[in-house]
């Protein structure tokens, strides 16, 4: 008996995947080829069309994980746990990509691959927390207990991340002035169109990936249960007098 929500996902996930591909394709085309170079940053602005949507999506992915974890501790629905597990690994993927593209962007603009910028630090910590989350799930024997522990970590991490970002920001302003910030850049229409397209595309891509991954996790659990029933039946029939 397959869950109703899983059936709905099977039905609609293709739309998300298709829309994501369309948005990302259009966004990349406009951003990388069709739009003019930025007045201040020149051709470098084009990295932003990839980096900023990735970073936004990874923040959003963590919010999904955070609220999903609260929901899971509250309702104990195994499907929600599957969704949390799916969002965590995909969030880790987006965070890694955001860090790499951020580093590539930092080299020409700040003339260094790495700087203790609050956003960079908080994304690194986010990646560390997600790494801990994924490890934690593997290290618990009982999968239900593992889901509960992982949810606890995700909740504590979700509350801590804004505090981490805030404290690093404070710490940085104390020791050296803030370096280049995207907030200072005036957003012109040339930038806005590809940026919006790419952001929507990345969000849709994330949604699509979570759907597929949740499905896989759910069906794997179901298969294990079925296999277990089969194993248990042979066990029962062998030992019943």
């Amino acid at each position, binding site marked *: 008996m397959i869950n109703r929500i899983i059936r709905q996902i099977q039905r609609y996930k293709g739309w998300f995947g298709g829309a994501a591909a369309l948005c990302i394709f259009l966004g990349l085309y406009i951003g990388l080829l069709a739009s003019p170079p930025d007045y201040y940053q020149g051709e470098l602005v084009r990295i932003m069309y990839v980096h900023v949507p990735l970073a936004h999506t990874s923040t959003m992915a963590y919010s999904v994980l955070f609220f999903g974890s609260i929901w899971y*501790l509250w309702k104990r629905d195994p499907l929600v746990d599957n969704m949390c597990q799916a969002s965590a690994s995909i969030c880790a993927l987006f965070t890694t990509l955001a860090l790499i593209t951020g580093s590539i962007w930092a080299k020409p603009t700040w003339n260094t691959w790495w700087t203790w910028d609050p956003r960079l630090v908080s994304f690194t*910590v986010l990646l*560390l*927390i997600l*790494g*801990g989350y994924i*490890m*934690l799930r593997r*290290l*618990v*024997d009982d999968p239900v*207990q593992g889901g*509960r*522990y992982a*949810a*606890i*970590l995700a*909740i*504590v*991490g979700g*509350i*801590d991340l804004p*505090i*981490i970002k*805030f*404290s*690093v920001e*404070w*710490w940085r302003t*104390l020791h050296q002035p803030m370096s280049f910030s995207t907030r200072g850049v005036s957003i012109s229409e040339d930038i806005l169109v590809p940026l919006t397209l790419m952001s929507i595309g990345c969000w849709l891509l994330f949604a699509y990936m979570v759907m597929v991954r949740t499905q896989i996790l759910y069906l794997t659990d179901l298969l294990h249960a079925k296999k277990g029933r089969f194993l248990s039946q042979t066990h029962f029939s062998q030992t019943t007098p």
Partner: protein
Amino acid sequence: MPFFKTIRWVVWKDLISEWRTRETMSSMLFFALIVILVFSFSFSMDQDAARQLIAGIIWVAFTFTGIIGLGKSFTSELQNDCLESLQMCPAPKGAIYLGKVAANFLFMLSVEILLFPLFVLFFNLDVIEAVGTLLIIFSLATLGLAAVGTLFSALTVQIRAREVMLPVLLLPLAIPVMIAAVEATRGALSGDPFSFYSQWIQLLIIFDIIFTVVSFWLFEFILDS
């Protein structure tokens, strides 16, 4: 009130066990001594360099020794399956959490108070005026570490590779405490006026409140099956 009685019983039990063996605190002390030695050899420091680095060194030593104490807090419950009896006792789980936090806080703070004179001695610090402020900073930062650390100590004690997982999970989350504690300690040691670093003490207080409340609520999900 059964709630406060439970807290008292847990603290009483942990303190009495520790007093009889002195296992946790002596291992914390020796580890911290080694950390101090390693640091003084890795940086050949004059007075000025020491002033710059000392706050960081103090908190690296305190945090790592704290993790040793926090880890022992729940591994000691594994003997004779005592954790099982904590799980199935009718007392409120939050009270058990607060009792454990209080005990861990006391262990960590006592080790810190014992260690601090050694820092003063080894690194020639001038601290007479700052002692009161430092005590407040140490207490607040230790409370923050103990609040999150006790939660994760209980969480990691029931999984594989627990000795590795406690620092792996705890240290990233403790970054705000580390930053605030180091900055406030640096300020207090260099004799700045209080208003220069009071913001860090505020941050410590906020962190302590948020994470005591959150962990208090989440602890129930760790101990309950």
